[in-house]
């Protein structure tokens, strides 16, 4: 029915433009919120219609599409009470809290995702929404076949054949059914009844390590949040110790009273389980968190952990001096702190590389990489000729005046400033590394002389010392400034 026709029938019809992206965001927010019950939350794949831009797919399922959330609450019910009581309490709590935020929702719980999906949509009584253990066969029998998540053509054929209830399918022979309709009806039926597994794919990988703390009264002061974080950290670090792992990444999530979630994460450059040190890293980040109108629950999780490689905790006096010059605890922790604020790419150590090309001889590595072995730099420095203390990232072209084309330069002009040279040392010839692929990915054709660089250390009449090179084949060479010497 078109909007104009609808308006004719109902003159005071309230209309809203379709906003699939907003719907998507809302369902994401709800999924985040549901993390309070279980880390294993998935957005119902059949609700994907809301993600698509086309308005038609949305109108098929009404406003918001068939959006739904699947929660795997295995082992979570005991937080609310023993056995089935706890599971019922969890379900009631979910509905009650959502209704507090003005959401109308139908939540069902069953042994299988398929059964819960069908019950949430088609159960007729409030009591039927909770399906006790192994009760899905009876619970589903009276529901319409739409509850099986079937494709539309199959559904229409079922209705034509008079198969209106899921229970109507139970006595049918399986082989002809599969021959007539393909695998889908039987697969869906078996999934709903729990005969085959149906994995739920969580939105974010559930962390193996997680601690939570909920509050009777919402908290909001930064000091309180810091205090809770430090308590959660201490608890999590105990878990780490038992599993002999250390955290590489930690995430703290604030569940606010208005249903939204704010998260922030820290990273470390090596497995860490020292809660005061981790707390120091968090202190940098906690300021970014916005408690909003109050926080009712905080969850600290470790999405990335690694096997503990650190030394056994020792008394400071007995700790051996490490061979790694940057391996000292203080430095690594400092690097973590700096990297958190400045970005990991901006806190690096320098590593030597076996290359004759000056700009390739020095490379940077993250602080977690092993340091250069002792003396590697000295060996590199002793092998090469004189090197500048500063190396230009990009060599800058200079104008050269020389007596003869192949002679050393007499004068060079850099940035419109002439430098008369009184001392020239060189050349030091550095040939191209032919074994490396060219930047374009092409291999140098045989018979062509590869480009070479002739480096000169020059001194101008003012005492300034520069590092120049002549690039390219000897004829038609260009000159560049590449560095500044001591």
């Amino acid at each position, binding site marked *: 029915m078109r909007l104009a026709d609808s308006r004719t029938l109902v003159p005071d019809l309230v209309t809203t433009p379709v906003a699939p992206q907003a719907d998507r965001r809302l369902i994401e927010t709800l999924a985040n919120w549901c993390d309070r019950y279980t880390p294993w939350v998935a957005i119902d794949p059949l609700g994907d219609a809301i993600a698509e831009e086309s308005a038609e797919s949305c109108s098929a399922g009404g406003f918001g599409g068939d959006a739904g959330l699947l929660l795997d609450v295995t082992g979570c019910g005991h937080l609310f009470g023993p056995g089935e009581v706890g599971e019922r309490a969890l379900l009631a709590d979910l509905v009650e809290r959502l209704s507090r935020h003005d959401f109308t929702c139908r939540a069902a719980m069953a042994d299988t995702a398929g059964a819960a999906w069908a019950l949430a949509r088609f159960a007729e009584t409030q009591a039927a929404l909770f399906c006790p253990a192994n009760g899905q066969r009876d619970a589903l029998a009276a529901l319409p076949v739409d509850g099986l998540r079937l494709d539309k053509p199959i559904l229409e054929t079922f209705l034509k054949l008079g198969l209106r209830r899921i229970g109507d399918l139970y006595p049918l022979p399986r082989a002809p059914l599969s021959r007539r309709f393909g695998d889908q009806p039987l697969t869906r039926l078996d999934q709903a009844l729990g005969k085959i597994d149906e994995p739920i794919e969580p939105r974010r990988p559930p962390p193996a390590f997680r601690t939570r703390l909920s509050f009777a009264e919402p908290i909001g002061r930064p000091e309180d949040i810091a205090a809770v974080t430090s308590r959660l950290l201490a608890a999590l670090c105990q878990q780490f110790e038992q599993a002999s792992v250390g955290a590489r990444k930690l995430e703290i999530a604030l569940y606010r009273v208005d249903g939204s979630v704010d998260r922030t994460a820290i990273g470390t450059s090596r497995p860490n389980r020292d809660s005061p040190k981790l707390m120091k890293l968090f202190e940098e980040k906690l300021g970014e968190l916005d408690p909003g109108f109050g926080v009712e629950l905080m969850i600290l999780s470790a999405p990335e952990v690694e096997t503990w490689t650190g030394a056994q905790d020792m008394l400071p006096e007995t700790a051996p001096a490490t061979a790694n010059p940057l391996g000292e605890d203080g*430095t690594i922790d400092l690097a973590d702190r700096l990297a958190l604020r400045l970005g990991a790419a901006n806190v690096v150590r320098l590593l030597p590389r076996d290359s004759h090309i000056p700009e390739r001889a020095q490379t940077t590595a993250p602080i977690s990489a092993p340091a250069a072995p002792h003396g590697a730099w000295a060996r590199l420095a002793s092998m090469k000729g004189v090197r500048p203390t500063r190396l230009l990232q990009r060599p800058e072209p200079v104008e050269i005046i020389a007596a003869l084309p192949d002679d050393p330069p007499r004068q060079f002009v850099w940035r419109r400033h002439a430098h008369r040279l009184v001392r020239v040392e060189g050349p030091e010839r550095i040939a191209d590394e032919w074994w490396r692929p060219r930047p374009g990915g092409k291999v140098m054709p045989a018979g062509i002389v590869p480009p070479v660089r002739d480096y000169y250390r020059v001194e101008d*009449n003012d005492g300034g010392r520069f590092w120049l090179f002549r690039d390219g084949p000897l004829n038609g060479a260009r000159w560049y400034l590449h560095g500044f010497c*001591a």
Partner: protein
Amino acid sequence: MPIISPQAFAPPPANDRGSPVPPTLREQVRRLERAHSVQRAVRTAMPLGLPKIDRLLPDGGLLTGALHEIEAGPTPSGRVAVHDGAALAFTAFLMGRLGPGTLLWCRQPSGASDAPPYAPALAAWFDPARLLMVVARRDEDLFWAMEEGLRTSGIAAVVGETRAADPTAGRRLSLAAEKNGVPALLLRAQPAAPQSVCATRWRVASAPSSAPDRARWRVELRRNRFGKPSVEEMPSWLLEWNDEAHCLSVVPQALDRSAGAPRRERLVG
């Protein structure tokens, strides 16, 4: 240059009424003079190995718990130096003499014409494996990173390459250095507004060398806060770095002809 003259607070024998100065006031004054009296007793210095210079420095060397500035000077002909290769080398020489531990090097990138320090050359003075390089885009981030470094154990020296001159940041760096006994070095490619809190300020410029591998630097000690007064108003030396023997030496005055007439500048601070 003491901020508070010791005479000004010297306890007078008696005040108007003839009663002595209350001890709390004396304690307060002592606390005010902390930088000059209390800290002096515990600080340590790192000799440069150049007796002519060490003689002038307090405690015979570069104070380890203090802020030091090294700026690139103009060339002998008075032009603004286009690079600070010599100042960087002098800084590296100082860092090489500072005890074991990590060297934190904070710098600001300067776009397309960025010229970071080149480790194969720095290896002449210290093992570049000790370096922790930090790139901070904003001034406040750079000063923050330096301060964090000064507060960390296991750091031998903190170097900051910046053009910014922030008196508050300089004061904070100086206090952090003083508290932890870690030297902070500010390397300036161009002379900046002087920071009154630094213990020493050096101006280093390249000078014509005498032979290949004998780089020479003109080094001026422009400020020497706690040091002994010099006979000259602006002590200045010609240093020669021998790249083969790896040693730095002061060129004797008799051979120091390149400097021309001694400059008549007043010692700042």
